[in-house]
Every structure is written in C-alpha cells, then in structure tokens.
C-alpha cells in the first residue's frame, strides 16, 4: 500500500490560498485589543498591531477608511476594531484590515476631545493672560453662526430688548457637518480683517456632541486663539463645553447669555456716569462750602477789627486836630484884625495933606538947588568950550589963510613948499582965504 498516496500534499501557494479562504470566512468581525507599534505613514495609511497579554495581530487601517477618525490612535490605547482578516500571500502575513475603530471605554469623540484639549492646553491656548478684555461699550458685534438657526434669533431678541445702538454683522456659516469647522474659522478670520468690529460672538444652539463637534476642531480653536478682537463663544447649552469655549476670551453658557454680555454694560455705564457726575458736583459744593466758612471764620477774627479800630482812632485824632487848628486860626485872625484896627486908627490920626505939602516943599527946594547947580556947571563948561573953539579956530588952515597966507599946489595937486620943485612956465594953483587962482611960474628963487 502507498502511504504517501493517502496524504494530501499541499504546495505553499495552495495551503496559503486555503488559509486565506478560511480567514476570509470570518467575514466582518470585531476585535478588541491594545494598539502597539502604531505607525501613521505619510501616505495616510495606519499600520499597527493589536495585542493582548498572549498574542498579537497585525492590522492595517487604510486612508480611505481612517480619514474620518476623530481621535488619535496611539500605543497603549485599547480599541475595538471592526474589519476583515486577510492574508498577504507573498509574505505569508495575515492581518486585520480595519474598516472602523473606536476606543474602548471613552467614546471616540470623547477621546478626541480629551486629546486635543491636552494638546492645546500644553501649547498655552487656554491661558488666562492671553484672554482679551471685552470693550466696555461695543459699537459693532460680528456673529459667526447659522443664519437660520435658533442662536441668531435669541441673540437679536436680547439685543433689541437691551440696547438701542449695537450694530450687528453676521457671517453665515454651517455650524455642523463636514466643512463647518472651516467655515467657522473663516468667519473669525474675516472679522479680524475688519477694523469696525469690536467683539465677536461664535455660537450655535444646543445639540449632541456630534452636532457641536465643529467647535472642537483644531482649526476653529486656532482661529479663535489668533483673534485679536475679543471673542465670546456661545455653543450649545450650559452643560456643553467645547474646545472653543476654553480658547475664547469669554464663554457664554448660551447665545442669549452672550447677547447679554455684549449689551449689559449700557445701563450700568449710564448709572456709573450719573454717579460720577453727582459725586463731582458734591465734591465741588463741599469745597466751596469749606472755603466759605473758612473765609467767614477769618472775617470774624479779631485781627480784622484791628484795622477798622485803628482807622476810627486816627479819624478821631484827625478831627480833634482839625478842630484845634481851626480854633487857633480863628484866634490868630481875631488878633490880626485887632492890630489892623489899631493901626488904622493911628493912621487916620495923621494929617496926610500936611505931610504931602511938606514933602512937596522939600522936593521943590531940592529941585531948585539942582537947577542952579546945573546952570553953573553949564556956564563954566560953555566958556571952556568957547575958549577951546577959539583955539582950534586959530589953528585951522582957514584962520591961517585969513592971516594972509596961501597954499600953493603943483600941477599934480601936491602942496608946494620948495621953489626948486618947479620951473618957469609951469602952471600952479594958489588957494587964498577966499577963492583960488591959477598961475604960471615966472621965475624961481632958491
């Protein structure tokens, strides 16, 4: 008998193919295990092993299935993976091709939330000192929300009630579903490009964790962190906390609450301004009052009476002195009058006419003496004068001519004294006492 003929002899390929079929018979199955050797390729594919304390199973989680994963798989994480077993013949490797995976215990969303929260907290995105204060009196608020949702209606209703003049600009965005996070982030970024927005509200109404998920996405968190305009997150109900709430400058438990936050100040501010005005008025009144009473006190002070008293005293002295002086003057006047009367009396006793006549006599006598003296003087002077005149006269050329002398002049008019100066025949003129004759020299005798 042929022992070998009864055994089935498989080739490697054959047995491998059979094993593959057997594995594929499992169909879709769930495996629970701990992730180890996790690698996330740049291709997007994830490769890891699932293990427990005794065995391990290789796994592959390709990109087209893993893209939706919210949480980050990491070594040590216990997961539930759903997929199919497969065998890679060339290498004889079998592995679980994962179609879906979720963490055991925490929901995957929950896990993703915790992971992102830790990561961003470590980066400091939640720090208090990075949060900006809301402006006291905002003029324009930008709201990133769904234009058809309940949140915007709540907000507008509150604003209408509470404040007259807050302008609103809405950036319509999807608030759930694919792409919502990108739209919300775009809205926050857009408002930051404008210069007229004073505060931003990002929000939506209530919902499940999936509904609110966009507000847990990293892109929204980073956009909120980067916002230089103060930002309020108002997502869902009081109990819902999203990553956006942690990063925002302020968290409102509901959209209505956010509306109150931006508008509440107005009444308080009015009260503050009124109170300050009142205090200012009071303070000034008090100051004035204090000054006034200080002034009055001073005025009442004795020191201020010293001057009036002194003045009165001086006044009195002046009056007395004036009186005394007047009296003295009067007395003097009287005395003078008396003297004048006395003199007058004496005066009239004198006979003035006699006095005048006597004086006249004296004057006349003096005048006569003056005249006779003058006459005498005059006569003596006249005789002296006449004597002098006679003497002059005797000496004058005319007197000499009268005595018979003549003046002879040459032809040129020069007086002739020397006969030698002329010769016979020359004309000469001769002046006599009376008249003149023209002569011709007949002879000369020297």
């Amino acid at each position, binding site marked *: 008998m042929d022992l070998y003929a009864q055994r089935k002899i498989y080739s490697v390929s054959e047995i491998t193919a059979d094993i593959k079929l057997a594995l594929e018979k499992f169909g879709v199955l769930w495996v629970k295990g701990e992730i180890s050797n996790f690698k996330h390729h740049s291709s997007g594919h994830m490769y890891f092993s699932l293990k427990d304390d005794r065995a391990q199973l290789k796994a592959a989680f390709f990109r087209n299935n893993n893209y939706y994963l919210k949480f980050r798989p990491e070594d040590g994480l216990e997961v539930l993976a759903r997929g199919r077993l497969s065998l890679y013949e060339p290498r004889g490797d079998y592995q679980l091709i994962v179609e879906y995976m979720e963490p055991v215990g925490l929901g995957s969303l929950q896990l993703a939330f915790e992971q992102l929260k830790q990561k961003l907290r470590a980066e400091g995105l939640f720090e208090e000192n990075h949060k900006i204060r809301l*402006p006291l009196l905002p003029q324009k608020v930008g709201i990133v929300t769904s234009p058809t949702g309940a949140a915007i209606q709540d907000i507008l209703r509150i604003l209408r009630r509470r404040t007259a003049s807050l302008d609103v600009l*809405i950036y319509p965005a999807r608030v759930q579903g694919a792409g919502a996070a990108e739209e919300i982030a775009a809205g926050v970024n857009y408002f930051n490009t404008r210069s007229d927005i004073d505060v931003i509200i990002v929000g939506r109404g209530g919902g499940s964790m999936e509904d609110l998920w966009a507000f847990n996405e990293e892109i929204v968190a980073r956009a909120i962190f980067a916002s230089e305009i103060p930002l309020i997150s108002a997502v869902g109900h009081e109990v819902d906390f999203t990553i956006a709430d942690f990063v925002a400058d302020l968290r409102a438990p509901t959209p209505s609450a956010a509306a109150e936050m931006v508008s509440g100040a107005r009444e308080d501010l009015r009260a503050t301004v009124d109170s*300050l*005005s009142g205090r200012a008025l009071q*303070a000034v009144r008090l100051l004035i009052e204090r000054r006034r009473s200080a002034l009055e006190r001073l005025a009442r002070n004795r020191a201020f009476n010293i001057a009036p008293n002194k003045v009165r005293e001086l006044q009195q002295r002046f009056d007395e002195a004036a009186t005394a002086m007047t009296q003295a003057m009067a007395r003097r006047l009287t005395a003078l009058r008396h003297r004048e009367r006395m003199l007058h009396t004496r005066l009239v006793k004198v006979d003035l006419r006699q006095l005048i006549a006597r004086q006249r006599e004296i004057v006349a006598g003096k005048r006569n003496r003056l005249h006779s003296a003058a006459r005498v003087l005059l006569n003596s002077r006249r005789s002296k004068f006449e004597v002098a005149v006679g003497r002059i006269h005797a000496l004058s050329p005319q007197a000499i001519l009268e005595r018979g002398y003549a003046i002879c002049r040459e032809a040129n008019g020069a007086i002739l004294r020397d006969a030698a100066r002329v010769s016979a025949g020359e004309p000469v003129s001769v002046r006599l006492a009376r008249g003149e004759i023209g002569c011709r020299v007949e002879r000369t005798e020297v």
Partner: protein
Amino acid sequence: MKLKDFESNLKQLEEIVAKLEGGDLALDQALELFEEGVMISRFCNAKLEEAERKVETLIKTADGDLTEVPFTAEGGEPAH
C-alpha cells in the same frame, strides 16, 4: 476709535472725581476740573443714548467678494 474714546473718557471722569474728592485743590482749579467733568459726562451720556442699530449679514457676490446686506428674520444662505 470711538470705543476707546468712551472708555478713556470714563477713566478720565473717574480720575477727575477722585481729585475733586481729594479735597485740597485750589478753588479755581477745582472749578476747571468740574467743568471738564461735566463735558465728559455729557459726551458719555450722548454715546449711551445713541439709538440707531443695523443688523446685516454677509453674502458672497458673483466675483467672490463678501458684501453686506440687511438681515431679515428668515436669514440668508451661508457665505460658502
């Protein structure tokens, strides 16, 4: 910005009141400060009294820009 004006005005008003309440100002100084305070509080009250409000939403125009239009209660479509 108007905003800063309100806040810094309010701050100034508080400072003025503190100075006036401090008590040892010269009288004419106090009156000057008081006048300034009155002007500031008038400005603040005017700001608080402003009563216009616009509610607008952004929509995308044909060439891809965003523009503002009045917002009606029914709302509009998302910007994207």
